[in-house]
C-alpha cells in the first residue's frame, strides 16, 4: 500500500519503549516533589537525537516518530526543556555550530525555553540551563545563559518555575526559517495533543469510579457528553498531527498549511479538554492534590512556545479549481 495512516511496526516499538521509560522514570507522581525534571534518562534513551541522522549520533528515526514521542512527553508533563532541546540542536546545526548541536542532542548541555516579556526574558524551568531557546513569534533565537544573573519569579499558580533575565543577551544565532518554526510547532502541538488525550483519559477513569447520587458520575449524560466532546476533539487533533508530521517529514507542499492548522487547533483542544477534566473531577480537580491542574499549567507554557498564526496566508491543499461565481 502506498498510503497508510496506521503506525508501522517501528513506530509502535519506539512508542512502547518510550512509554515504558516514561512510566518508570517519569511517573506523574514525581510532580508532587516539585523538583526540576532530570532529563538524563530521556537523553540516554536517545529522545533528543531521534531525528538526527545516524552518522551524527541519531537513531535514524524521522520527525514523525519524534512527534509521536513528544506526544508521550506531553502526557507525562516532561519539562519544556525537552522541547527546547531538539530545537536548540537543530538551530545550532543550521548555524554551523555542530559541536553545540551534538552536545545538546546527547543531553550534555542543558537547554531551556525562554519567552520575551516586555524588556526581559522569562526562562521556563531554566534555573540551571546553560543555553536558552527564545521562542518569539516567527523566530527562534539561541542564547548562552551561563553568565547571566537570573532572578526567580513566582510562576503561574506557584507551580510553573520561572526565572527572569535582563540586559544584553549573549546571542549565538537566530532563525526565522519557516521550516524550523514548523518543526518546532509540530513538537509543541504533539505535546499539546498528549495533554489533550491524557486529560480525556484521566477524566474518563475518574468518571467511572467516582459516585454521586448512588451511581458513577459517568452514567450521567452530562458527564458522558463532556467525555465524548473531549474524544472527538482529541481524535481530530491527532489525525491532523499525523497528517502534518508526514507532510513535514516528506517536505510536502502542504506542510506549512497543516502545521498552521495545528497551531490554531492544538492549544484550543488542549485547553478545552483540560478544563473539562478539572470540571469532571469537581473539588479534587481544583485542588493541587490531583494532577489535572499540572496539565492546565503546562498548556499555558506550551502555547507560549508556538510561533505566530499564518493560517490565512497559505494556500489550501484542497481548493476549488473555479471560483464560485464561475460555477453559478
Amino acid at each position, binding site marked *: 500500500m502506498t498510503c497508510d495512516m496506521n503506525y508501522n511496526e517501528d513506530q509502535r516499538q519506539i512508542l512502547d519503549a518510550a512509554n515504558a521509560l516514561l512510566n518508570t522514570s517519569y511517573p506523574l507522581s514525581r510532580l508532587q516533589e516539585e523538583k526540576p525534571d532530570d532529563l538524563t534518562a530521556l537523553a540516554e534513551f536517545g529522545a533528543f537525537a531521534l531525528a538526527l541522522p545516524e552518522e551524527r549520533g541519531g537513531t535514524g528515526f524521522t520527525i514523525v516518530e519524534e512527534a509521536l514521542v513528544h506526544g508521550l512527553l506531553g502526557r507525562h508533563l516532561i519539562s519544556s526543556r525537552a522541547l527546547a532541546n531538539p530545537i536548540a540542536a537543530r538551530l545550532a546545526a543550521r548555524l554551523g555550530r555542530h559541536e553545540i548541536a551534538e552536545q545538546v542532542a546527547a543531553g550534555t548541555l542543558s537547554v531551556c525555553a525562554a519567552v520575551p516579556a516586555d524588556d526581559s526574558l522569562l526562562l521556563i524551568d531554566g534555573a540551571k540551563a546553560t543555553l536558552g531557546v527564545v521562542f518569539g513569534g516567527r523566530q527562534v533565537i539561541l542564547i548562552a545563559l551561563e553568565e547571566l544573573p537570573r532572578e526567580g519569579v513566582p510562576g503561574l499558580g506557584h507551580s510553573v518555575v520561572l526565572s527572569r533575565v535582563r540586559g544584553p543577551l549573549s546571542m549565538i544565532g537566530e532563525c526565522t526559517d519557516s521550516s524550523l518554526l514548523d518543526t518546532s510547532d509540530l513538537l509543541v502541538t504533539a505535546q499539546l495533543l498528549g495533554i489533550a488525550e491524557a486529560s480525556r483519559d484521566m477524566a474518563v477513569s475518574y468518571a467511572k469510579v467516582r459516585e454521586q447520587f448512588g451511581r458513577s458520575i459517568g452514567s450521567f449524560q452530562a458527564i458522558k457528553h463532556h467525555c465524548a466532546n473531549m474524544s472527538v476533539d482529541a481524535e481530530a487533533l491527532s489525525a*491532523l498531527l499525523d497528517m502534518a508530521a508526514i507532510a513535514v517529514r516528506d517536505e510536502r507542499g502542504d506542510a506549512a498549511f497543516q502545521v498552521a*492548522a495545528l497551531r490554531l487547533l492544538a492549544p484550543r483542544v488542549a485547553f478545552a479538554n483540560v478544563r473539562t477534566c478539572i470540571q469532571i473531577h469537581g473539588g479534587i480537580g481544583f485542588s493541587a492534590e490531583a494532577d489535572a491542574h499540572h496539565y492546565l499549567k503546562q498548556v499555558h507554557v506550551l502555547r507560549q512556545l508556538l510561533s505566530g498564526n499564518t*493560517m490565512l496566508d497559505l494556500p489550501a491543499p484542497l481548493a476549488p479549481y473555479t471560483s464560485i461565481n464561475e460555477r453559478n
Partner: protein
Amino acid sequence: MQLDFTQDDEAFRVSAREWLLANAPRKRGPLDGQSARAFAQAWLSQCHKDGWSGIGWPKEYGGRGLPTEKIILWYEEYVRARAPSVLDCTFVSLNHAGPTLIACGTDEQKAYHLRRILVGDSIWCQGFSEPGSGSDLASLTTTGLVDGDHLVVNGQKIWTSYADIADFQELLIRTEPGSKRHKGLSWVICDMKSEGITVRPIKNMAGATHFAQVFYDNVRIPLSNVVGMLHDGWRVAMTTLGFERKTAAMGLQLELSIKIEDLIALAECPPGSAIGKQLAELRAEAAALRAMTYRTLFKDPVTASDGSLMRLYFAELSQRIHRAAMDILGADALTDSTWTHDYLESYSETIAGGTAEIQRNIIAERILGLPREQPA
C-alpha cells in the same frame, strides 16, 4: 504512516480532473421532485458511460474496484471541480442499498438491481426511521407478517428522503411478531409502486421537499425480496455501515474544505479581524476533518463509534461554517441563495442519521466504556 501517491495514482488524478472539469454540470441541480431525479440520473448515467460510476464497487458487479488511494483522489477532484453534491437522490442506492446487496443479496437480487443502480436507472430511498423511533431505531414497529410467499407490511416510516421519486426502498420492518429491539427485524426490498403505499412529502425548513412520510397499508412484498435471512435485518443493516462511513461520507466531508475556501474568498478579512480569526479556525478544523477522513479510510474495521466521532465533528463544523457564511453575507442572508439554502439544510446535520446527542452517547459508551444509559 505514509501518504505516497504513485505515478499511476497521479495519472489517475489528472484523468479524473480532466474528465470532471469537462463534464461536471456547471450549475447546481434542482432540489427536489422529478426534475431533481432527472438531473441526478443524467449525471450518473454520464459518469457510468465514461467509467466513473461505482468506482469503489467490485469489478464483478460492474464497479471499477479501485483501491482507497484512487478513491481519495477521485473525491478530491470531484469536490474541487464542484461536481454535483454526492448527497442527491442516487446517494442511497450507490452508497447503501447497492453495497448491502453486494454483501448480503441473493444472485437474483444482485443481477436485477446492481446494474440499474450504477447506470442511474433505479433510484432508492431508505425506510428506517419511524415517527416513534427517530433516534431509537431499534424500537421500530412497522410490521411485515408472512403470508404464503409474501410479507404483508403495515405501518409508517418518516424522514424518507426522495420517497416521492424513488423506485425502490430499503425497508427495515419487524417480521417476528412480539420481538423486541434489534431482534426479529428484516431488511427487504420494497417496490415503491406497490399497492398500498402512500407517500406524503414533507417540506423542510429550507423550502425543499426531499423527504416524506410513507404509509404502508397491507403492502405485499415477495419473500424473495428479503435481503439476508428473515428476522436478521439488523445485521444486514449494519453490514454497510463500514462502507457508508468510509467512502460515502468522504465526498461530503471533503466538500467542507471547498466551502471554507469559498467563504474565505467571499469575506474581507483584514489581519487580526474577528471574522479573520473565525475563518482561520474554521479552515483549521476543515483541515482536521480531512485528516480524520483519511485516517478512517485506512482503519480496519471501521466501527460504528469511529463513524460517530467523524459524523459529529463533520456535522458541527458544517453548521459553524454555514453560520459564519450568514454573518458574512450581511443583508444578503435574507435572500434565497446557495449559501442560505445550504445553511438551512445544515440544521439537519446534527439530527439526521442519529442526533448529535445520540452520537455522543455512542462515543461515551462504546469507545470510552462509560456506563450505559439506564433503560426506563
